[in-house]
């Protein structure tokens, strides 16, 4: 349910963009949901609709696309995908709230290092905003 706060961030940003560009309406917002954070799509969508009511984004189409979580080891340069179903549920839950907790629970499968970069699929990201 902290998806509401994530949705709030998105809506705020979209509205700021609309304002900055003097747009009356937001037509479409393309959002990426990183696999690492495992945002619940349904709650997130509901929140986006609720939160954009009575704003220029009211009738916007919010399209959501999942982005795989790719990590890259800073030590041995190995790159790997996080397999969702291989995470322990408790750990997945903590990473859901704070993706950086990945550095506490995940390790480079090649060299065991906790020192890796989250190359993609970290959190929620706005890919594009179409204004009307």
């Amino acid at each position, binding site marked *: *349910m902290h998806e509401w*706060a*994530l949705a709030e961030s998105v809506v*705020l940003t979209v509205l700021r963009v609309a304002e900055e560009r003097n747009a009356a309406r937001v037509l479409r917002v393309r959002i990426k949901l990183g696999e690492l954070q495992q945002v619940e799509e349904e709650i997130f969508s509901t929140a986006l609709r609720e939160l954009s009511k009575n704003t220029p984004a009211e009738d916007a189409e919010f399209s959501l696309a999942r982005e795989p979580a790719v990590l890259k080891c*800073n030590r041995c340069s190995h790159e790997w995908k996080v397999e969702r179903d291989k995470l322990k549920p408790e750990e997945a839950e903590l990473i859901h*709230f704070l993706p*950086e907790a990945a550095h506490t629970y995940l390790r480079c499968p090649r060299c065991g290092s906790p020192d890796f970069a*989250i190359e993609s699929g970290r959190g929620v*990201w706005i890919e594009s905003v179409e204004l009307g």
Partner: protein
Amino acid sequence: MREAEKQLSGVRRVVCVGSGKGGVGKSLVSATAALLLSQRSRRVGLLDLDFYGPSAHLILGAWDLMPTEDRGVVPPEIHGVRLMSIAPYIGEGPSALRGSDATHAMLELLAITRWGELDLLLVDMPPGTGDEILDVVKFIPAAEWLVVSTPSKLSIQTVRRLLLLLRETGSKIMGAIENMAEGEACVEEFCRAEGVQFLGSVPRDPKVERAIGRPELLLRTEFARRLEAIVRKLK
């Protein structure tokens, strides 16, 4: 994205407890100040931004208090203080964050935490003048700074670097507190030279250690009594 503003919109004042130097008592001062203010019926939040050595939860005895999920994350309340920290998420595990990870973690906490209405949000800063400091300056420009130093030359020299940074970025410096005072008025003199308000001294108090994790006990230490005189000045 991930704006701090919305979640901080009900917060009247953000006060960062910083130093540049480690081990000067930033965490002890910020946690105790939060307790003192809460006792005086202020609505107080405490945000621990030390991602490598989070301490606020240890001082307040809130090891296993998890934030609850409700249209965001609602900080647990302990002795009237709403506490947010990385600790519930990393437990006692290692914290191998590079600077950009710290930036992300901070923005995430700011984006999800529902502070609600607060008279004051105290921010317990990590040592150094790196990512966390630069990010607070960038994302919470209205933050005011309460600087902590011990009388040691090693502390004062580093605190000076922080003050220069805060000045240059137009940050508001409320003043400086001397912690673990030891006779000579080194920090007061330093404040005069730097044109920073000296807020007062708090002595080294050996009783503090036993009171870590026990807020009632902590509030009854000489340390807390002396800090109260300073906190009162801040209204």
